[in-house]
């Protein structure tokens, strides 16, 4: 649905040149929620702005909906943009228009007649749960409500792709959560493909299928969230399960990181481990998180006794990932 190849963006500032994006390539499959995370200044905003060419890439290609945007003449590019929704950190609603007027805006641009616009606006406000605010002005809304208007506006022309530039970064955790659920719901119901950038791991955890980590203009890690999360060496899993300070290793013991995924996280694996083998288990730390709707746990344990190798094999056989240090 979105194919980015060899994308580079160079900013020439007064004395230095900044490679905001350095040969970035990624593919967003239809119906997927793809997150791009990274620290401040990594080039996230530049990346998403290059997708609809708000920013002209220095090099590389962008294909959206099968159209090579980077080679389109201006008029065609405008038409292509009408099929790509976008939402923003600061909402960017017209203060002079009511909620309904804002949602109708892209429909006016596209040239739909008034009757259709009215029907569609009603539908959209219903979709985002703001029907009773139709005649309010943006200044009278809360942040979460404003973003709902932003979402309704972005979806007005029935785009198949939604770009989200830090859409929840100006919102409190609770509101963030409700906006993310709305996005997930739209993704499922409309088959909407979403490319979102964020600096909040929380967002990845709640709704992303796929994630790319951007650092200094380069993608340093990319993959399906559930694959990365169970790989203790991935940056993503380290972000969710920080190793913390190195625990002082007790001589004569084996320390291991055990990752529980799905059902395994609910079973009393350790208890049966101690019962079956001649070992002692000491828990050094751990946490359980819900990521992409699945429970994932990580335990840091120390094993001692005569049957440690057998115990580790048993753990692996039950479907857990075990990393021995």
């Amino acid at each position: 649905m979105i194919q980015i190849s060899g994308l580079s963006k160079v900013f020439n500032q007064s004395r230095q040149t900044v490679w905001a994006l350095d040969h970035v390539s990624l593919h967003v499959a239809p119906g997927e929620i793809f997150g791009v995370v990274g620290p401040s200044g990594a080039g996230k905003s530049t990346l998403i702005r290059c997708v609809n060419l708000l920013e002209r890439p220095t090099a590389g290609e962008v294909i959206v909906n099968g159209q090579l945007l980077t080679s389109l003449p201006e008029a065609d590019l405008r038409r292509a943009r009408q099929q790509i929704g976008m939402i923003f950190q600061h909402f960017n609603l017209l203060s002079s228009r009511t909620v309904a007027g804002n949602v109708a805006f892209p429909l006016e641009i596209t040239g739909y007649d008034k009757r259709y616009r009215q029907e569609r606006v009603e539908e959209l406000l219903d979709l985002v749960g703001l029907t009773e605010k139709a005649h309010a002005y943006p200044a009278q809304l809360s942040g979460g409500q404003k973003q709902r208007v932003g979402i309704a506006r972005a979806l007005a022309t029935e785009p198949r792709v939604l770009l989200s530039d830090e859409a929840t970064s100006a919102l409190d955790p609770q509101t963030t959560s409700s906006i993310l659920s709305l996005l997930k719901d739209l993704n499922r119901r409309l088959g909407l493909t979403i490319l979102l950038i964020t600096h909040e791991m929380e967002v990845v955890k709640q709704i992303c299928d796929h994630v790319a980590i951007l650092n200094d203009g380069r993608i340093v890690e990319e993959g399906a969230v559930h694959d990365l999360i169970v790989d203790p060496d991935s940056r993503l899993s380290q972000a969710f399960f920080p190793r913390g300070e190195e625990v002082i290793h007790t001589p004569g013991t084996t320390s291991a990181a055990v990752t529980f995924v799905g059902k395994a996280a609910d079973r009393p694996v350790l208890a049966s481990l101690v019962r079956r083998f001649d070992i002692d288990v000491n828990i050094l730390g751990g946490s359980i998180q819900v990521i992409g709707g699945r429970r994932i746990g990580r335990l840091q344990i120390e094993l001692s006794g005569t049957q440690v190798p057998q115990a580790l094999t048993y753990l692996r056989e039950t479907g857990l990932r075990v990393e021995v240090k």
Partner: protein
Amino acid sequence: MDWSVWIPNLSHAALETLYMVGVSTLLTVVLGLPLGVLLVITDRNGLKRAPALNQVLGAVVNFARSLPFIILLVVVIPFTRFVVGTSIGSTAAIVPLSLAAIPFFARVAETGLREVDRGLVEAAQAMGCTTWQIIRKVLLPEALPSLILGIALTIINLIGYSAMAGVIGGGGLGDVAVRYGYQRFETAVMVVTVVLLVVVVQGIQILGSKLALKVSKR
């Protein structure tokens, strides 16, 4: 002091002021607003970058604004004659009045338009708006409160300028104040015209602020 003579005199002068200022304001907005828009969009970071044009326009506007009105009034006499066929009278005064107010209003409009959040323009671009659509549906409506205040300010300036229109026989309240009040020591006439002018200027300021507040939904 014979008020039965003065009242028709004053109302005639008031009508002349109304005519000069009214028509000049109209012309100023019709010509100055596009100029202001041009100044904004041809800018380095504008929607339709044209640095050369931008610099030329900026220089012309600055030049016109640096000219004292009383000098402009005289300098443009040939032009005035060319446009309206005569260089004296209320109609003739409209030409220099507008020429003085257009660059002023263009700058005021420019400032107001620049205050529109860049994010809004960006959102409109992301939706596939043409430059014209962005001007008409984003920049102008969002800047409307500042534009209204700018128009009020322009009218007040024009009333001030119009007092000098007597030089080319434009008439008006200011002219009455100068000719009768000052030159012929009719203090009462002077006071009445000054009070009238003050009331009108205050009224326009208040009206402008009220209207701007009313259309502002921020």
